[in-house]
């Protein structure tokens, strides 16, 4: 897959997402198989980079007790919350059964080594 090809994970919300995409960092700023924390207003956002360089962005608050998901261990396209080990699917934002809950997702993509994110309104 070429660098120009974008990985768009997470459903774009409402508007054509590309207009609202903002450059937030470079791919090299993100640890492989890890995450960085972003803050937009009052919203903490966890930006993930998986082992195969797919990108995902979700709200940095576990649906269980609000733990910082950006500090969790990344396995495939899932993250384990560092507080009580809930597993959240990065693509769907949903907690793995038998736990219930879901986090907000943000569209993000990679263009020429730079990471773009749609933080919505």
């Amino acid at each position: 897959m070429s660098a120009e090809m974008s990985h768009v994970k997470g459903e774009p919300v409402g508007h054509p997402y590309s207009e609202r995409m903002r450059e937030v960092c470079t791919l090299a700023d993100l640890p492989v198989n890890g995450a960085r924390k972003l803050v937009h207003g009052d919203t903490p956002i966890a930006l993930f980079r998986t082992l195969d360089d797919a990108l995902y962005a979700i709200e940095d608050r576990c649906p269980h007790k609000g733990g910082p998901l950006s500090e969790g261990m990344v396995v495939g396209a899932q993250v384990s919350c560092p507080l009580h080990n809930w597993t959240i699917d990065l693509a769907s934002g949903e907690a793995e059964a038998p736990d219930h809950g879901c986090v907000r997702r943000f569209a993000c993509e990679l263009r020429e080594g730079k990471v773009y994110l749609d933080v919505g309104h």
Partner: protein
Amino acid sequence: MSVQKKRLVVIGNGMAGVRAVEELLVLAPDLYEIHIIGAEPHPNYNRIMLSPVLAGEQTLSDIVLNDWAWYEDNHITLHTGVTITQIKRKQQMLCSKDGDFLAYDKLLLATGSLPFMPPIPGIKGKGVLAYRDIADTEAMIAAASKHQQAVVIGGGLLGLEAANGLCKRGMKVSVVHLAGHLMERQLDVQAATLLQTDLGKRGMAFYTGTSASEIRVNADNEVTAVVLKDGSVLPAQLVVVAAGIKPNTVLAEAAGLYCARGVVVNDTMQTYDPKIYAVGECVSHRGVAYGLVAPLFEQAKVAANHLAEMGIGRYQGSQTSTKLKVAGIDLFSAGDFVGTEASERIVLSDPASGVYKKLLIEKDKLIGAVMYGDTANGAWYFKLLKEGKDIREIRDQLMFGESNIGDSGHQGNMSAATMDDQAEVCGCNGVCKGAIVTAINQKGLFTLDEVRKHTKASSSCGSCTGLVEQILASTLGGAYSAESKADKAMCSCSPHSHAVVRKAVKEHKLLSAFAVMQFMEWQTPQGCSKCRPALNYYCLSTWPLEATDDPQSRFINERAHGNIQKDGTFSVIPRMWGGETTAAELRRIADVVDKFKIPTVKVTGGQRIDLLGVKKEDLPAVWADLGMPSGHAYAKALRTVKTCVGSEWCRFGTQNSTQLGKDLERLYFGMYAPHKVKLAVSGCPRNCAESGIKDVGIIGVDSGWEIMIGGNGGIKTEVAQFLVKVSTDQEAKDIASAFLQLYREEGWYLERTVHYLARVGMSYIKKQVVDDAHTRAALIARLHLALHNAPDPWLMQPASMVDKKQFTTIMLKEIA
């Protein structure tokens, strides 16, 4: 894109066959198009719970394990009410009475067993039932509402459960049993006598050492009585035959598959036709046919592995244990309870209070157990038996149970059977016994892992694991098989145990967590949050100079070098060697607290100072301002060496404990281990540093140092065990180093020294660390090699390779 899938057909919609499919779906969800054929018009249900249904304690819907939706969700075609009459092996075709029915690529036989019906007159009469399935159970319930008298032929497990159920439904029940005492396969005479007395009080009558010679019927072929060999006549309108089962091999034999009291399979559960596998009660494995659930599940797991084309896993036979599912009767039996002349017996017998226990021992190992009246320790005995543990050291306490030996957690203090439903089992997650029992029954749970997932009990600190296992055992009875920890898979990513993985890392020189997963064919490409930290540790501890650390396989605490708190902030605990500090250090700490507005400052139990509520962004600056090394209070590593003031100041002190403590702390700085490690050094036997509850505890005496190991002040307080007495500081350091290195090399990830010690035994550790000077020297050398120049993650940041980017949050401006 999609290739034509191979078709797997399972004949038998019972517990063994469906369990194999469940295991297969986990391993290879898309490999097969799956068909299950069942003769009964029901989805898979929990056959062992038929007795509580008969006794009116549960309903049929309670015992369904996989409802109709499960088959649909997993794209399994279920054919119920279909009877396969022929397997054409050459054409790989199954036929029903109407001709060709379904072709297969792989076939799994799970046809179960048939009841043995003695060939006596009247056996075909109306009102004569076996006790195998829902239809039998329903017929018995219906008969109980119409008739008064029943005879049960067979006083084994199944027969007695049937008799009890009918009794509870108001019938007058007589049990006819061929052998001299009840349940002779599981019980000795003493236990069986107690059982018979108790059941007799409930209104059952017993005729042992005799058999039925005839079942009398009336003109409508309805049962009227059972005639015994001695001519006595027992009036009955219902006769339940539970005189044993035989593997159902009708189809297999007709198809020319080799059968010998069961469909013969090898250790991969394959029959003599490589396309056909078999599991469950229809199978004969190494000459044994099993009729209990736990072994069938083990078989299902192995068969699934081979059907998934993974080619690992062997079934090597099972030890089984039995519990009678009759409310109010406590009975447990496992292993060989008869023994030979060579076996030794420990017996506790108190007939007046209805308690009898017998343990059989051969060559310092427990080989069998029978218990009646008090079975609280059944699961523990069964574990000892399965693991073949050497019981020499605990022999004098063995009869009095686990609580007298002490293990971790509450398991010593109470027994599951006597707890009431409101009693809290898991203190971390607030789960009471009733919730666990309900989940086991309603959701059809069989393993500790399943209980953890569904109830959260035992999923945090793990101290209640033993208790949860006891609840599983007492709720499921014979269906529960306590997995021995030694061969338990480390997580669901692979079938390998910790021991096997550690060995492979060493033998094949595996240098990273991902290399281990690849080499050992992990079933999940990237492991999970359980196994990755363990693998990372195993590589680093085995190959300290060559292995590559993967920070992303570490828990956040070890990545950020602080302890994450519930609000996402971190705690900072600087190291204070031996618990000593200075005015300058305290001033710097005070300044840091002011400058970074740190909300809480607390003195820890490990003689140092905890700064709580530090923002992650502030960590590097806090460390730099403190100018003190990391206390590693967040890592699976050396934590503190607690000391008393010792002979320098104390008027009772005999040894300079502070100095030895500081020396040891410097020696082991940055020492990662399977779990956290705490040391203490006291200067006299008053033991003010609390050496008795540390991983390595040292106590000064006039003539030197006493060293003890395996203490623990946490979850359940464990007193350290005496290892050796030495006369010099150097010897004390050497012994401590050798023991810690042995633990680092052999301990399983997250296993504290107390559990490591319990697993390998004190005599083994003594031999390696104390008796054999060569091993000791080699261990010490390896420890020094691993710790040589261990970098301080706080002060030596380039060398310690801490990812610094993580401390910056990317701030996004809001667009108006």
